[in-house]
């Protein structure tokens, strides 16, 4: 069953309520700045952002499935495309491209050319190790865990660090099987 995920993403995005992008970027920026002030260690801030994202992801996935009408995914490859074309488009306003699949089909890269959260942000030298949008890695991990997929999501390239684009590497660790009771007959 071929389905146009691009179109599904556009439709879902159109249905979502919108807020001013500067409010979003400034609010997110304040969160990161405050975490930096509180924890002082860049690695810890990255971890906290990921945990925040995880808590968002486990909640967002239900809203996502309800509003996007994409139905269930047939494979991990399908999940990747849905995240990139529908999920990110719906909640962040920008879609990503899926690329660099591993041989066994358990790892892929999500490449984002632009990200509204990056607007106006300039990372100072002493915060070089900061993954500013690490919250997105947590969102992906949380959302997929609710769908019985345990993954690891890490930033490998970030535009704010001078790279050409932003890239999240997603690795499937295991598929958690649903447990069904034994059939009597």
């Amino acid at each position, binding site marked *: 069953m071929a389905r146009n995920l691009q179109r599904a993403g556009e439709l879902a995005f159109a249905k979502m309520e919108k807020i001013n992008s500067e409010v979003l970027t*400034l609010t997110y920026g304040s969160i990161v*700045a405050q975490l930096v002030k509180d924890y002082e260690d860049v690695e810890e801030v990255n971890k906290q952002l990921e945990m925040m994202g995880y808590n968002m992801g486990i909640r967002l996935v239900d809203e996502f499935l309800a509003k996007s009408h994409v139905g269930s995914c047939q494979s991990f490859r399908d999940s990747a495309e849905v995240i990139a074309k529908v999920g990110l488009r719906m909640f962040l306003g920008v879609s990503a491209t899926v690329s660099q699949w591993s041989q066994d089909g358990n790892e892929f890269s999500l490449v984002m050319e632009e990200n509204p959260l990056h607007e*106006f942000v*300039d*990372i*100072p030298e002493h915060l070089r190790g900061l993954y500013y949008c690490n919250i997105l890695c947590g969102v992906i991990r949380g959302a997929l865990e609710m769908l019985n997929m345990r993954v690891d999501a890490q930033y490998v390239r970030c535009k704010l660090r001078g790279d050409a684009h932003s890239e999240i590497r997603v690795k499937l660790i295991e598929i958690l099987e649903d447990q069904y009771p034994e059939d009597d007959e």
Partner: protein
Amino acid sequence: SCACRLSYSAANMSSYFFVIVAPGDKPVYSEDFRFGTSGREESMHMSEFIVHAALDHVDDTVWRTGSMNLRVVDKFNDSFVSAYVTPSNVRLMLMHSARNEDSIRNFFTEVHELYAKALMSPFYSPGEPIKSAVFQQRVQAIAKRHFG
């Protein structure tokens, strides 16, 4: 001869000293621009002193006009100091020997926009020195565009 004596050669006509001064008279950014000159005669300290002394004149002039661009507010020997005051009382000060008001006005306007964007970064607090390399590159590009 007096240590403060300034002398300008004709080749020195295109030198500018730019400072951004936050409320409280704290300089948060300064840059020397030299276009096709052999070098400036007075030291950096002298330039900073001249600009700082001009701040008093800015405080007087700012009440006499509604515009942000105050143009020339002070003179010292052969140099002029022009000023531009933003709504948040950040002073853009430019020490210059050439009198090109239009270029200076355009320079100030563009740097003001750049400064407003720099303020939007969550890692920058107003009043702190601006350390961003990107900011410096852009200021230099603006200066080159209008004074180079």
